[in-house]
C-alpha cells in the first residue's frame, strides 16, 4: 500500500485506489484513538511544520493532534492576514524549510495553488490544508470517511452540497473525491454562488432546497462566509436563510431520513438551523473526530513511504 503521489495537494485526479487506501488506513487509526494511550510511534524522529497563512482553529488543531499522536516533532507557524506579497513570502519560507531539514509540511494559504508551488520547491512531503477557493483534500477525505462509516459504501450515495459553491474549497474537494468513488453528487445554492459550468465536474444542479430533500441521502451544508455578504452575491442573510437555510422543517418533508454534515464553524440559524445541527441526523461532531484519524492516515502513508 503506497500512494501514487508523495504529496497530498488535492483530490482532483486522485485514484479510487488511493482514496480507498487512505480511508481504510483511517479505520485503523480510529481504533488507536480509542486506546488508553492514543499515541503510536511510526513518525518518531520526523519533523513536521504546520504553516498557516490563514486563520484556522479546527483544522490546525486536528493536524497537530494527528501529528503528535504519530510521535512526530511538530512546529506550528501561523500568520493570519499577512500583507506581505505572498509569492515572495512562500519562496522564502520554502528556503527556510529546506535549511531546517523538515520532513513534512502542512500548509494553509489564501492563494489557490500555494501547496502545489511549495511541493515543487522543497524536498519535504507537502499536505494541502486548504488553498484559497481551490481544494481542502483532508476535509473531503474526512467527509467521505464519515459517510462510508455511516452507510458502509459511497457508491450511488446521493450527496448534495448546499451553499456558496463558487468560493468553496470544501465543495471542490468533496465533488472530486465523491464522484471518483461513485457517489451521485449535486449542488444547491443561489445562482450567483454556483459556477456556470459546474455540470462538467459530473454534478447535478438544484436551485430549490425543496427539490433536494426529495432526492438525496445526505446534505453537506457549507458555511456562508459572512465576509462575502458585502459583495452583493446574495441580498441578505435573512433571505439566504429563507431559501437555502437547511432547517428541520424543510428536511422533514423528505421521504427518508437525511444525514446532515457541515465542515464548521456553523453560523447557527443562517445556513443551518440550530435544532437540526444538534439533532440525531447530524454527523457534524463525528466529522471532527474522524478528521484526526483521517489526517493520521494521510501523514502515516506519506511519511513512511520512501
Amino acid at each position: 500500500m503506497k500512494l501514487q503521489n508523495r504529496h497530498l495537494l488535492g483530490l482532483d485526479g486522485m485514484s479510487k485506489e488511493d482514496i480507498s487506501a487512505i480511508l481504510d488506513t483511517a479505520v485503523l487509526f480510529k481504533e488507536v484513538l480509542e486506546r488508553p494511550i492514543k499515541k503510536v510511534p511510526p513518525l518518531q524522529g520526523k519533523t513536521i511544520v504546520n504553516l498557516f497563512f490563514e486563520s484556522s482553529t479546527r483544522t490546525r488543531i486536528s493536524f497537530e493532534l494527528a501529528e503528535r499522536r504519530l510521535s512526530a516533532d511538530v512546529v506550528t507557524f501561523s500568520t493570519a492576514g499577512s500583507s506581505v506579497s505572498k509569492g515572495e513570502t512562500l519562496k522564502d519560507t520554502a528556503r527556510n524549510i529546506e535549511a531546517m531539514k523538515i520532513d513534512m509540511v502542512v500548509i494553509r494559504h489564501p492563494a489557490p495553488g500555494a501547496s502545489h508551488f511549495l511541493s515543487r520547491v522543497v524536498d519535504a512531503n507537502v499536505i494541502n490544508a486548504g488553498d484559497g477557493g481551490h481544494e481542502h483534500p483532508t476535509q473531503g477525505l474526512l467527509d467521505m470517511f464519515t459517510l462510508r462509516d455511516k452507510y458502509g459504501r459511497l457508491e450511488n450515495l446521493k450527496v448534495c452540497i448546499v451553499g456558496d459553491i463558487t468560493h468553496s474549497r470544501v465543495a471542490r474537494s468533496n465533488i472530486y473525491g465523491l464522484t471518483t468513488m461513485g457517489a451521485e453528487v449535486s449542488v444547491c445554492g443561489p445562482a450567483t454562488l454556483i459556477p456556470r459550468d459546474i455540470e462538467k465536474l459530473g454534478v447535478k444542479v438544484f436551485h430549490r432546497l425543496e427539490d433536494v430533500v426529495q432526492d438525496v441521502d445526505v446534505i453537506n451544508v457549507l458555511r456562508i462566509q459572512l465576509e462575502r455578504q458585502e459583495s452583493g452575491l446574495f441580498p441578505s442573510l435573512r433571505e439566504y436563510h429563507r431559501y437555502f437555510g437547511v432547517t428541520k422543517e424543510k428536511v422533514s418533508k423528505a421521504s427518508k431520513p437525511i444525514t446532515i454534515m457541515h465542515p464548521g464553524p456553523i453560523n447557527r440559524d443562517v445556513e443551518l438551523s440550530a435544532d437540526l445541527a444538534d439533532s440525531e441526523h447530524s454527523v457534524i461532531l463525528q466529522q471532527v473526530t474522524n478528521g484526526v484519524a483521517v489526517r493520521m492516515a494521510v501523514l502515516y502513508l506519506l511519511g513512511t513511504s520512501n
Partner: protein
Amino acid sequence: MMKKTKIIDATGFQRAINRLAHEIVEKEKGAENLAVVGIRTRGDFLARRIAAKIEEIERRPIPVGTLDITLYRDDLRGRLDQPQLQSTQILFDITGKTLVLIDDVLFTGRTIRAALNALMDMGRPAEIQLLVLIDRGHRELPIKADFVGKNVPTSMKQTINVLMKELDDEDAVFLSDSDEMELKR
C-alpha cells in the same frame, strides 16, 4: 538450487498445539486470569487454536486478541515497500492479565520487541509470556521464548515457512535453502 524439507506435518502441528496448550495450563496453574494475543498474521491463527485447546482443557473462556505491530516496527523507514497496516483488536483490558504473546517464528526478536512496546501502550499486564511455534535462532535482541513448539537450528540463508489451514492448503512447516531470504523478510 532450492531444497525444501517438511519439518512438521499436519499431525505434528496438531500435537505441538496440544502440548503447548497443556504446558501453559501447567505452568500458569490453570487458566484463571489468562489471555492470549497473537501477532498478525499466522500468530493470530495460532493464538485462536491454542486458546480453543486451553478452553477445552480448563472449561473456561480465554480472551483472544490480535496485534498488528506495523506502527511499532523499527524498519518503517528504509524499506522500499510500505508494509500493509492492519487492525489491532484487543477487546479486553490487558491490565492485570497474564498474557501469552504468540507468534509463528522467533528469529531476530525485533517483532517481539515491537509487540511488547505495543502491548505496554495498551495497559499493564501482570506478566507476559512468549510462545512461538518455531525458534530458529539468530537473535539480535535479548529475547527468549517461554514456550516453544520446535527448536530449529538454521543458517541465515535458510527460510522457515509456516503454513496454516486458515490461509494455506495445509498445516505444515517447511525449511528451505534459499537465496531469496533477504527479499522475503
